[in-house]
């Protein structure tokens, strides 16, 4: 009985590990009080443009945000801003790990953080060198105004509510290098080659052994001796 009791207590204790997760802020409850603009800056040609392709490694993103004048006075509690890179709907289809959810604790739309800045009503600009771990997808930029604890209070984004305009596509690195390609080829050839080599060597050895008739008879002789000794063991002969 006591074993069952212990088991039950353990089970209850484990189930009590259920973390009481407080639901995060609901996105629908936030007002769009910030205006945000993002541009792609090509370092090589020093040109900037609003939409198009941004290449990881060669391009920067210039993001500027400010408080929308029609919401002046509503920014009393804003302490910082979090600037995040968010997936556009076209990059979210059939990818549950990028799903948009209203509960911001569970929302995965804006999983890539760009930076955090102090809040000032006149706004600020940041230049972000697009990091090499950014996947290839279509994005927009969203800025959350947060309080001292990091709870979202308001937001602004570069695109509209339907997330269809001002989208930027980021072209990622492939991760491949010529050296990796060469190493893979060398190892593969080594694997198949050494296999062939081993099999070939054994075939040659076998042919040499078979050609020696004396070896053949020696084997047969040993077999007979063994056979007789086994039969003697069990008292048949």
């Amino acid at each position, binding site marked *: 009985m006591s074993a069952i009791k212990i088991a039950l207590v353990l089970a209850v204790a*484990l*189930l009590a*590990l*259920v*973390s009481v*997760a407080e639901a995060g802020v609901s996105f629908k409850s936030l007002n769009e009080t910030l205006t945000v603009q993002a541009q792609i800056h090509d370092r090589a040609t020093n040109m900037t443009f609003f939409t198009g392709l941004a290449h990881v490694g060669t391009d920067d993103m210039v993001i500027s945000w400010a408080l929308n004048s029609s919401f002046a006075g509503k920014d009393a509690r804003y302490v910082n801003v979090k600037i995040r890179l968010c997936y556009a709907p076209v990059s979210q*289809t*059939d*990818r*549950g*790990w990028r799903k948009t959810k209203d509960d911001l604790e569970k929302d995965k739309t804006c999983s890539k953080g760009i930076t955090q800045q102090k809040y000032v009503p006149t706004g600020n600009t940041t230049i972000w060198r697009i990091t*090499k*771990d950014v*996947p*290839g*997808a279509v994005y927009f930029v969203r800025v959350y105004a947060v309080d001292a604890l990091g709870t979202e209070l308001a937001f602004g984004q570069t695109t509209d509510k339907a997330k269809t305009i001002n989208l930027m596509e980021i072209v*990622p*690195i*492939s*991760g*491949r*290098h010529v050296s*990796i*390609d060469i*190493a*893979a*080829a060398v*190892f*593969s050839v*080594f*694997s*198949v080659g*050494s*296999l062939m080599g*081993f*099999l070939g060597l*054994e075939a040659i050895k*076998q042919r040499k*052994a078979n050609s020696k008739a004396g070896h053949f008879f020696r*084997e047969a002789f*040993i*077999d*007979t001796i*063994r*056979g007789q000794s*086994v*039969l003697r*063991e*069990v008292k*048949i002969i």
Partner: protein
Amino acid sequence: MAPQGENRTDADLTGEPGSSLHGVTGHEVFPYINMDTVPEEATDLKGRKFSLPVDSEHKAKKLKIYSFARPHMLTFHLSWISFMTCFFSTFAAPPLLPIIRDNLGLTKTNIAHAGVASVSGSIISRLLMGTICDLFGPRYGCAILIMATAPAVFCMSIVSTVDGFILVRFFISFALATFVSCQFWMSSMFNGQIVGLANGLAAGWGNAGGGITQLVMPLVYDLIAKNIGADNFTAWRLAFFLPGCMHIVMGLIVLAIGQDLPDGNYSSLKRSGDKVTDTFFKVLQYGVTNYRTWIFTITYGYCLGVELTVDNIIAQYFYDRFDINLTIAGTIGSTVGLMNIISRPAGGMISDMAARRFGMRGRLWALWTLQTIGGVLCIGLGLLGSLGPSVVVLVIFSIFMEAACGATFGIIPFISRRSLGVISGAVGAGGNVGSILTQVLFFSNQSYSMEKGIMLMGVMAIACTAVLFLVYFPQWGGMLCPPSKATEEDYYGGEWNEAERAKNLHRNSLKFAENSRSERGPSRQEQTSDSAPTTRV
């Protein structure tokens, strides 16, 4: 040499359809176990002493796990380690999928297709491997397969498209056929008394490779990405050189120091002639027309199939649902595969214990119970929403499911004596088919979230396990029905037609029938037949 006549040895049966799996059962007292004691100073053909007690075929009668002595224990270790390597590389991609999917732009459908591909290749290769082992020996079979799939593993480092990823996972999965060479090799080296245990341990420890990879690959990736400082999308590619090199190393070791039989290699030993191939169709016919083959194909599909599916999806599931980092997700995922180390052999032992008390009916009930509890826990896993309980349920679920896999192979050897090889191959392939079906139905659909998919997988496992109620052995009964007056000789002898019986071709089946009387359970053991006692040489 070996006494001719009634007691043919394994060497005589080389090449015969299904011979690659003789001895797997551990119940084949005649003619595969030779009870003759051989003096402790038994030596092989070259005069070297064996370090384990052997029978007159030089197969070991004991299993010393900590020993690496040639040839028996060395074979045991080579065999399970090479099987483990193949599982390692087949399931090396799933723990890194959160990085790979961003690099290649994979969608959920792509990932599901890759998961299906990763268990399909082995269906074909497992069926071919049996023949290769019969003809060329398990050493060549294992080494050739493992070194020929190494290029596929290296190709994973250079994929840059979705189709490339799916193709590479398909080709790597060919390596899972080392299961067949592993089991065959064990049967050649170990006496029937312990071959069941040896096979169970080797299969379980090999399957654990699917768990080890989920632990090791994220660690290797972290090492390369953080300590060496490579980009994410390069680091995962470099991490794949580890399984690739493991393939090459194991292949070379097997070729260099492995040997097919206790006395040496196939090529240097005389073999007693090629076997008839015109009975291949007969063997196939009796395997295919036995309805129990298909029942166990279905149940194994939802036993091993569930385990393979979980190997593929679990790290991603924990990473996405609970927002933990990649290494921790991989560690949690690895517990599934690692449980195999004890649970698969334990399942076999539970089946054997049930048989001692209740005979074959006990085995069937044990299997049904283990697999149904596994299914219930799978449903629970899908329904739980928090991390701690999910991990606990995952561990217990994997123990039960893998024990069910072990218990299945406690029953398979008794379905047929003539077609054992075909049936084992079909059931093994069924495991992969079950995994394919599950991944296609529940994990490639946009409408099912992953937790719903897991829950539905559990429901389907319970439903498919229920077909076990349809299994009925006339001589032993079924789960619900008691046995009839039929005998084991009727059942196993019935696989041979009149003409074959007239030629006494069914004598091995009759001997097996006599030894399978233990499946009646203790209450009916007194009803042994009154036929003349069999003589033993």
